[in-house]
């Protein structure tokens, strides 16, 4: 899906243009050249939901910086990853592994309120009682390159526990949990957040067999080509926005439970995981 289509879908389109126009004028008055930046967001949710979450944040950012930020959607994770690789976005919200893969981006802010880790679930009443029982079994994951639910678990199982297993990718976290609960998979990879959202009747059939090492969650990054003062302008603007109640509520949906500044060093642990070996390149 293109960015133009996204704009078309925006409910307050006239308002959006109006605001853009205002800031354009303001930028003239302050003798600063107003610029437009393209923003990309990893499609963990459907496009509509992403738009709903990010529109208020970006418009606030525009207000605070005097620059325009345009959201550019992507059809699925592989196409997002392709766009990232081509540096199509000026700003990008991505998972930590994406950041490791795309060092041309610099982290601006991240969530300081939680950490990212994968969980491995199995049937509560099933015959898998320990990780070692998974030897030679079939495990389900939502997608090959899902950071917590797939890459980190597979990396740990193999690197840490020396388990060999069959991997099957069943598109969504829910499918993973269902397959596992119904006994089609010996175990399945997911994350805590999606697991907790499952229906009780699923959850009651499952048990968490293993949790992975915790890593710093998704950063919002700015491309290296963006000047340092703009980088700082954006970082300050977001931090100031996060200080407001409105900003706190808006950012929580990203999810940025507690917004804080992000550094390159925050993602060293992810880098150390050497996930490249487990990354499956899209066809």
């Amino acid at each position, binding site marked *: 899906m293109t960015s133009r289509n996204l704009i078309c879908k925006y409910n307050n389109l006239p308002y959006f243009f109006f605001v853009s126009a205002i800031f354009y004028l303001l930028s003239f008055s302050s003798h600063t050249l107003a610029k437009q930046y393209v923003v990309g967001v990893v499609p963990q949710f459907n496009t509509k939901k992403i738009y709903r979450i990010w529109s208020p944040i970006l418009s606030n950012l525009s207000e605070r910086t005097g620059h325009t930020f345009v959201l550019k959607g992507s059809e699925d994770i592989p196409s997002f990853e392709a766009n990232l690789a081509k540096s199509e976005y000026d700003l990008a919200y991505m998972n930590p592994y994406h950041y490791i893969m795309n060092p041309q981006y610099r982290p601006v802010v991240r969530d300081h309120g939680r950490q990212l880790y994968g969980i491995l679930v199995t049937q509560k009443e099933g015959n898998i009682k320990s990780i070692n029982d998974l030897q030679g079994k079939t495990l389900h994951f939502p997608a090959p390159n899902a950071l917590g639910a797939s890459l980190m678990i597979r990396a740990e199982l193999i690197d840490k526990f020396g388990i060999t297993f069959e991997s099957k990718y*069943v*598109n*969504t976290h*829910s*499918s993973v949990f269902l397959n596992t609960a*119904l*006994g*089609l*998979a010996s175990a399945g990879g997911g994350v805590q957040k999606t697991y907790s959202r499952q229906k009780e*009747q699923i959850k009651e059939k499952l048990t968490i067999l293993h949790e992975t090492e915790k890593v710093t969650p998704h950063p919002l990054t700015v491309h290296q080509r963006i000047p340092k003062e703009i980088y700082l302008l954006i970082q300050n603007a977001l931090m100031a926005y996060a200080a407001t109640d409105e900003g706190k509520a808006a950012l929580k949906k990203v999810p940025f439970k507690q917004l804080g500044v992000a550094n390159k060093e925050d993602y060293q642990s992810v880098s150390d995981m050497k996930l490249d070996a487990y990354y499956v390149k899209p066809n």
Partner: protein
Amino acid sequence: MKITAKVLAPFIFSFLSLAVCVQFLYFPYLENRLYDLESNRYKAELAALSPIVAEELFISDLAKIHSILNSYDSTLKSREQLNHKPDNSISHVYLYSKEGLQLFPVNQQTSALAQKDLTLVQPLLFENTPIGHLSISTNINKSLIESQINGLQLALLGITLFMLIISVWWNEKVIIFPILSLAKAAKQLTKGNYNYHITSNSIDELGDLSTAFNTMTKTLSETNNALNKSLAEAKQATQTKSLFLANMSHEIRTPMNAIMGLSHLGQLETNPNAQKEHFRNIELSANNLLTIINDILDFSKIEAGKLVIETIPFDLSNLINGIHTVYKLQAEKANVRLTMQQELEHPYLMGDPTRINQILINLLSNAIKFSAEQEVDLAISSQSLGDNLHNIQFIIRDTGIGMSEDTLAHLFEEFSQADKGTTRKYGGTGLGLSITKKLVDLMKGEISVTSAKGKGSTFTVSLPMTLASKDDIKQSNEQLLSESCIQGVAGSKVLIVEDNFINQEVVKGLLDRVKIHHETAENGQRATELIETSSFDLVLMDIQMPVMDGYQATQKIREAGFNIPIIALSANAMTEDRKQSLKAGMNDHLAKPIKPQELYQTLLKWLKK
């Protein structure tokens, strides 16, 4: 069977047959059909779901499958709830892996499953490899179908009943009611109630029938009334005629009695004066009788349209004087004072003196008869109507008993007299005034009467007549000859052909008085023989005779070449008879009874030639 039942039976039978057919043929079919429809629907839905589910199952995207099946499950639920399926009968879809592991729903709903009576299974194939199966456990709601059928049955019953009632009502109104009212009307008609009228608004054949029936009733009623009226009239006429006959009998017998009695007494009487008195009375009675008979004959003639009014010159003064002379005596006898006024500038007129005489005599004799010891006045006047035409008015006024209005109304009708009492007291045939009226009509005149009971009556007769010249009268007068005038033909020889001895005697006597010689033949045969042998100046020929009648005899005489005048002397007094006589070759016709004056006049006329 009553007409109602006859007309309605086919309708009721049709409706019932239809209802039975639908009940026992259509409804069972419908029930199966609904059942099949329902199960086919589930089958079709499962078949439609299967490729998507199979594809997702192949990649184990159970979340997507669950989302699809949940959506289908809730569709089933809401649909079946809309169809009033009880909650424990709601259908559910199940998904099983090829190993038989239940993949949807997560928990087995065993309690619900117990209620299901139909399980449809749809195998799931991916690239022709079975990878599991979908199934629907459902309860095709038989009771729902049955209740639907029951609803339909009730509706059908309702509609059938409704249609039946409508049909019955319609038939009742449109066919049966009109027929019944026709039948009722016909019944009324047989009872003689012609006033019964059918009210029908329909414009169909039944309406036409009703209208025709009404018309028929009306016509029948009118015909019946007319018949009743005719019957009453006929009865009245018969009664009147019977009465008339009784009167007539009485009227004829009275003078007859006198004639016969006096004849007998005359034969026994030796005193010539007394004999003469008897003869005079006999003549009087005979005249009365003749009047009566003439009345009857005149009436018959008028009725038959055979009375011919003559138009000859005559002197009205003479006629009036003659009447005056005759009736003065009669009036004196009845103690009636008869006066007469003539105001005629020009008494010579063209008309029928005989009939005018008859009219006046009728009216006068009535006036005298009904005015005992009173007064009768005859006034004659004339008014010019232009040219030669005059209106001659005769007014006969009496101060007699007069008449009621009721009597006046029927006065000129035949066979009517004022009342039976009148007949008894005054006699008469009751034909006089009727004849008078008819004669006046024939002369294109008018007759009217005013009367008051006890105060007398006034009859007014107006006759239009043209004036005649004095010469016409003179010529006519010459014909009025007295006995003395006939002396000029004395010594002529006449053959009397007559079979009746007394009539022979009468004619002989009359001829002897004027010294005319005569011979007698008793029939036509004899007459022809005598003509051959002797020489005669004239023949007086009776018509009805034995051996050979008058017509045949005359023809023979003419055939033999004799031009001798032959005069019919017959009791056949009608105009038709006269014509027939002339046709047979006779020269003139005299009606019996013979009036001497008439006989002499005719003899004079023909002998002089």
